[in-house]
């Protein structure tokens, strides 16, 4: 019944305890909000690169906060100092909290040492969006790429993160790959830490 039980009122936000993280948000509400976000930005940019950048910046803000919150809540105040550690943190913990499941796969790039890829068959933000042909290579997964960049940047692993469509045989829709390219200093520090 609506209204049963009193919700405790807090005088300011600092008094309220941090949520335990068991809350779920309705999918329709989120996709509606996300579609509005994309449409809002679409009317204010001149080209596709700018639109992708704006979505990425929106995701970056989310990523910075998700990193701090999850390390405190789910990982018992342990920081990640190694590359593989932070990648598996993104691939499992972050994905599970944001999308309800771990990412489909985490792969290391074959051509370059500093490239890693997280793939998802059906990325939540792309699930209900179809890209018109005249928009070329635009991918709404740029929002999720921004989230990943926010997490990595916050933890001290600066990287360039982009989202790409990869057509798969046997699947109607292409799967989405988040490509992570780490900065030079990250690899140097990894080599130094051994």
């Amino acid at each position, binding site marked *: 019944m609506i209204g049963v039980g009193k919700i405790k009122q807090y005088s*300011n936000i*600092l008094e309220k305890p941090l949520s335990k993280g068991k809350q779920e948000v309705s999918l329709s509400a989120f996709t509606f909000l996300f579609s509005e976000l994309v449409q809002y930005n679409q009317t204010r940019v001149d080209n596709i690169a700018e639109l992708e950048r704006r979505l990425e910046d929106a995701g970056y803000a989310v990523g910075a906060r998700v990193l*701090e919150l999850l390390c405190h809540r789910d990982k018992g105040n342990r920081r990640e100092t190694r590359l593989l550690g932070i990648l598996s943190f993104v691939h499992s913990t972050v994905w599970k909290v944001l999308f309800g499941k771990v990412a489909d796969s985490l792969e290391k790039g074959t051509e370059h040492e500093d490239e890693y890829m997280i793939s998802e068959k059906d990325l939540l933000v792309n699930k209900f969006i179809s890209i018109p042909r005249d928009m070329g290579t635009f991918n709404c997964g740029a929002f999720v790429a921004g989230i990943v960049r926010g997490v990595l940047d916050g933890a001290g692993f600066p990287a360039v993160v982009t989202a790409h469509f990869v057509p798969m045989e046997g699947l109607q829709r292409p799967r989405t790959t988040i490509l992570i390219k780490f900065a030079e200093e990250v690899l140097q520090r990894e080599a130094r830490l051994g």
Partner: protein
Amino acid sequence: MTSTACFIIVSRNDIPIYEAEVGSAAKREDAAQLHQFVLHAALDIVQDLAWTTSAMFLKAIDRFNDLVVSVYVTAGHTRFMLLHDSRNEDGIKSFFQEVHELYIKILLNPLYLPGSRITSSHFDTKVRALARKYL
């Protein structure tokens, strides 16, 4: 028991975003500047030490006369630094953990730009109350 203590929060980009003198001793003008200077000088040590361990609480990392610098590094590399003269490590650890929770609540505000100064007076009041309780 009087104790001197200076607490600052330094962001990832080495910009102080919050400062407070939380000791119960009488405040002197020159002492405050000296405390801040010592804390900033300890930042280099924190930088190296942060990558060697995955724990958040790095205990006493530097000393100056009889004052000790203790540091707590969060996941986003925001550093809580405390300059103090007490030996109560558990109290200091609890203080850092409580301030960490407060910091996360401030950070979750979507209108707060990470790395900018914390201007909330509620935050200030609560930090001083925690300092009186644990230090």
